[in-house]
C-alpha cells in the first residue's frame, strides 16, 4: 500500500483536537502516556523501597514513610498502571482495527472513561501530597478505618478509576459483539480480541464490587456505619471477602490481555497458525469465569472455615490448568515455524520464562498447608511480581514494541532493544528470585526493618533493582528517540496477518479506506504459499 500522508496523528492539529477527540486511536495514545507516567512513578517508589531495604537499619526513611511508600507503590502500580495498561492503551488502539471497524461502539463513552481515569488519578495524586496513605493497597479494615493518613482520597481515587475500567469494559463487549467486519466470525477473531473480551467480562462483573467496598470504607471512616468495624460490631473479614471478590479477578484483568498479546507475537514471528486456536480462546473465557471463584485463597490463614478453604483451594487449581494449556500451545506453535527473533519476540520468550516460574510458585501457594507458611511473606511478593511484572509487564512491553510501528509509523533501534531486554531480564530475576528464598526462609512482607541474617539477600535484590532500572531507562530513551529519528515504518513490517496490518502505518482516522471483508482466520499463514 502506498504511503498516504494523512493519518490519525496529523489529521487535525492542536491540543483541543486531542482533548476532544473521539478517535479510539488517539484515546489509546493518551492512555499510553498516562500509563507510562504512572509506571515511572510507581517504579520510582519501588526503587526507593529497595534502597531502604539494603540495610536492616533505618537509613533513608522512617517506618511511617516506608509504609506510605509501599502503599503508594502498590496503589499506583495496580490501579493506575497495570489494570488499565493493556486494555485501555493497546486495547483501545487495536480493538477496532483488529475488528475492521471504524471505531469502538461508543466513542464518547470512550473519551469519558479517559477523563474519569484522569479525574481518579488526580485524587490519588492528591492523596500522595496530602498525608500519603499508609494502609497497603489492600486497605484492610480495621487498620484503614483508624489510620490517620489520607485514606479517603486514595479510596475515592480507586473508586473513580474503577468506573473508568467498567466503562471501558462495557464499550469493548459491545464493540466485539456488534462492530465486527463482514465475514469476521467469532472463530476468525484474533486471540487478542478474545483476551480483551474475557478481560472486559471481568471488568464489568468484578469492579462494581470493589466500588461498593471502597464506598462502604469511605462511609465507615466518615460516619462509622460499622459494617467492617469490629469495634462497632462489624466484621473485618467481610471486607476481605468483598475486596478479593474484585481483586483476585483483577489479577486476570491484568494477565488475560497479556496472554492475548502472546498469541499475536508467537504467530507473527513464527509465521505459523496458532496451535489450538479454540483451546486458547475458550481457556481465556474459562479463566475469566473461574477467576471469580477463587478469591478465598487470600484468606486461608484468616481463620477461614475448613469447607471454604477446601473449595477455594480446589478451584484455584482448576484455574491453573487453562493457563498451563496456553503455555504449551504457544511452545507447540513454534514447532517447524519460521522464527524471526526481533524485540517483541524476545519479550515473548521473557514472558514464557518468567510467567512459568510465577505459575509454578502459584501452585505452591495454592496448596493449603504450604500457604500457611508462605502467606504474607516475600515468597508471595516474588510470586505476584513474577506473574504481574514478569507476565503482564513483559507482554505489555512486547506488545508495545510489536505495534509501535503501527501506532507511530516509526521503527526503533533493534540493537538497543536487545540490550535493554537483557538488562530487564537480568535485573528482574536478581530482584525477585532472591525474594522467593527470603520468603520461604520466613521474611514477612511489608517489613521496614528485618533480622540481620536476611541482609545479604535483601542487598542483592536491591542491586538487581538498579539493573532493572537501567533497562527501563534505556528503553524509554530509544523509544522516544524513534519518534524523532526513527526510520519510517512500512504498513506491515513483521508480515502479520491480522487486520490492523492491512491498513497504513499510522492508520487514517477511520482506520480503513474501505471496510474490509474477512474470508479467512487471523493466522492463516498457510495461504502465503499460494499467493
Amino acid at each position, binding site marked *: 500500500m502506498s504511503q498516504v500522508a494523512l493519518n490519525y496523528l496529523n489529521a487535525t492539529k492542536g491540543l483541543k483536537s486531542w482533548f476532544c477527540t473521539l478517535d479510539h486511536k488517539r484515546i489509546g495514545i493518551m492512555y499510553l502516556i498516562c500509563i507510562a507516567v504512572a509506571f515511572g512513578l510507581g517504579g520510582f517508589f519501588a526503587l526507593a523501597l529497595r534502597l531502604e531495604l539494603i540495610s536492616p*537499619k533505618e537509613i533513608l526513611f522512617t*517506618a511511617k514513610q516506608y*509504609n506510605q511508600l509501599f502503599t503508594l507503590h502498590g496503589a499506583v502500580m495496580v490501579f493506575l498502571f497495570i489494570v488499565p495498561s493493556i486494555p485501555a492503551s493497546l486495547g483501545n488502539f487495536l480493538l477496532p482495527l483488529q475488528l475492521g471497524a471504524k471505531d469502538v461502539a461508543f466513542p464518547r463513552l470512550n473519551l469519558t472513561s479517559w477523563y474519569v481515569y484522569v479525574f481518579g488519578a488526580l485524587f490519588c495524586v492528591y492523596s500522595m501530597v496530602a498525608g500519603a496513605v*499508609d*494502609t*497497603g493497597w489492600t486497605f484492610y479494615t*480495621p*487498620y484503614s478505618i*483508624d489510620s490517620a493518613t489520607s485514606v479517603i482520597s486514595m479510596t475515592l481515587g480507586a473508586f473513580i478509576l474503577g468506573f473508568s475500567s467498567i466503562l471501558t469494559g462495557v464499550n469493548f463487549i459491545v464493540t466485539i459483539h456488534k462492530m465486527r467486519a463482514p465475514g469476521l466470525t467469532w472463530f476468525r477473531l484474533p486471540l487478542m480480541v478474545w483476551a480483551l473480551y474475557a478481560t472486559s467480562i471481568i471488568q464489568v462483573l468484578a469492579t462494581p464490587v470493589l466500588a461498593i467496598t471502597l464506598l462502604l470504607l469511605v462511609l465507615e471512616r466518615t460516619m462509622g456505619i460499622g459494617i467492617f468495624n*469490629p*469495634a462497632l460490631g*462489624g*466484621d*473485618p*473479614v467481610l471486607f476481605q471477602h468483598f475486596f478479593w471478590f474484585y481483586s483476585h479477578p483483577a489479577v486476570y484483568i491484568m494477565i488475560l490481555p497479556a496472554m492475548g498479546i502472546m498469541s499475536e507475537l508467537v504467530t507473527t514471528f513464527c*509465521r*505459523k*497458525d496458532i*496451535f489450538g486456536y*479454540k*483451546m486458547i480462546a475458550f481457556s481465556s473465557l474459562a479463566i475469566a469465569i473461574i477467576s471469580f471463584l477463587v478469591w478465598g485463597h487470600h484468606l486461608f*490463614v*484468616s*481463620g477461614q472455615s475448613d469447607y471454604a478453604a477446601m473449595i477455594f*483451594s*480446589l478451584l484455584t*487449581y482448576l484455574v*491453573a*490448568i487453562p493457563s*498451563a*494449556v496456553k503455555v*504449551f500451545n504457544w*511452545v*507447540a506453535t*513454534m*514447532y*517447524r515455524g*519460521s*522464527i524471526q527473533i526481533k524485540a517483541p519476540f524476545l519479550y515473548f520468550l521473557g514472558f*514464557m520464562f518468567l510467567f512459568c516460574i510465577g505459575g*509454578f510458585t502459584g*501452585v505452591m501457594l*495454592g*496448596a*493449603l*498447608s504450604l500457604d*500457611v*507458611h508462605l502467606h*504474607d*511473606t516475600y515468597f508471595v511478593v516474588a510470586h505476584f511480581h513474577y506473574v504481574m511484572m514478569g507476565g503482564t509487564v513483559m507482554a505489555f512491553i512486547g506488545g508495545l514494541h510489536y505495534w509501535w510501528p503501527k501506532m507511530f509509523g516509526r521503527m526503533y533501534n533493534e540493537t538497543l532493544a536487545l540490550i535493554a531486554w537483557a538488562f530487564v531480564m537480568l535485573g528482574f530475576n536478581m530482584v525477585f528470585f532472591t525474594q522467593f528464598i527470603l520468603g*520461604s*526462609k*520466613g521474611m*514477612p*512482607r511489608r*517489613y521496614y526493618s528485618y*533480622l*540481620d541474617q536476611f541482609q545479604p539477600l535483601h542487598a542483592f535484590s536491591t542491586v538487581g533493582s538498579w539493573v532493572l532500572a537501567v533497562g527501563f531507562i534505556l528503553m524509554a530513551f530509544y523509544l522516544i528517540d524513534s519518534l524523532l529519528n526513527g526510520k519510517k515504518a512500512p504498513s506491515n513490517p513483521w508480515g502479520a496477518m491480522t487486520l490492523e496490518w492491512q491498513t497504513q502505518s499510522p492508520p487514517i482516522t477511520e482506520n480503513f479506506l474501505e471496510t474490509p471483508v474477512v474470508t479467512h482466520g487471523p493466522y492463516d*499463514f498457510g495461504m502465503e*504459499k499460494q499467493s
Partner: protein
Amino acid sequence: MDTSLQTESLLHTGTTFFPEGVGPFASSMDSLFYFIFWGSVIIFVPLILVSIYFLIAYRRKRENQLATKQMTHSTFLELAWTVPPTILVLIVFVWGFKGFLHMSVAPLNSQEIHVSGKKWFWEFSYPNGNKGIGELVVPVDTPVTLLMTSEDVIHSFFVPNFRIKRDVLPNRYTKLWFEADKVGNYQVFCTEYCGDGHSAMLAVVRVLSAEDYEDWLAEANSGDDLPLDKLGEKLYTSKACATCHSTDGTSRVGPTWKSLFGSKKAFVGGGTATVDENYIHESIVNPGAKVVAGFDNVMPTYAGSLNDREISALIAYIKTLQ
C-alpha cells in the same frame, strides 16, 4: 529494630528454601514443597530446552522463508498436556488439604495459652495466671494451643520454624496449635500489616526441657496472680453469676454451667450451636444474641464490668465443670 528480640533463632539453618523445621507440620509441608519444586523443574526445564531448540532449529534464515508445516491441533498432544498436570495439581490439592486439616485440629490434651495481639506487642496469658510479653515459654514435646485475639487491628502470628501462621482478629478467637520437639528459641513475626510498629512486633517462643520448664513455673508462680480457673471460680460468686447459674446441674433462671462447655444448645428463634469460647464470650457481653431455648432473655450485659482476662477466667472455670 529491637535487637533484644533477635534470637539465635534457627532461621538461617535448614534447607535452601526453608528454615529448620520443628514440630509436627514441618516435614510434610517441606516434602510437599519439594514435590512441587521438583515436579516444576521436570516440566519447566524441558519446556525451556524445547523452546530453545525450536529457536535454533527453525530460525528464519531467508527473508521470505515460510513455516515448513502448519499444524493447528493434535488431540493426543492436547490431552497429554492437560490431563497429567490436572492429576498432579489434584495430588497437590489433597496433600495440602490434609496438612491443613492436621493444623486446624488441636489434640485434646493440649495446653491452652491465650494470646493477645496489640499494637505492637504480643501478650501471652498462661493457665496459671501468669502473663508474659514478647516471650512465650512452653515445655518441649507438649502440644500447645494458642487461643488468640486482637485488641485493635488484625495481626498475624507466624513462627517460621514451626510452619504455623494464623491471623489474629479483633472480633474473634482464632486458634493455632503446635508441638515443639526441640529445645530452643524460635522467632515469632507479625505477618499482617498493622502500622508503624509492624516490623518490630516480634516475639520469641522459648521451648524448655521438662525440668527447665518446672523451674520456670516455680519461679513464675511466686507471684500472687491466681490461675485462670481459680480466678473464674472467685468471679462466679463475686460477680453474682451464682444467682442464676448453678454448677451442680440444677436449673435456675439461666442454664447450669455443669457440663455446659462442649454441649449443643438450641436457641430461642431457631438455630443451634456448640458451646465454645466464642459463644460463652458472646453470652457474657451480649446475652440477648443467642438465648438458650427454654430460658428468658433477662441477663444484663457484662460488657465493661468484666475485662478480657476475667472473661477468659470464667471460660476456663466453666471448662473445669465437666
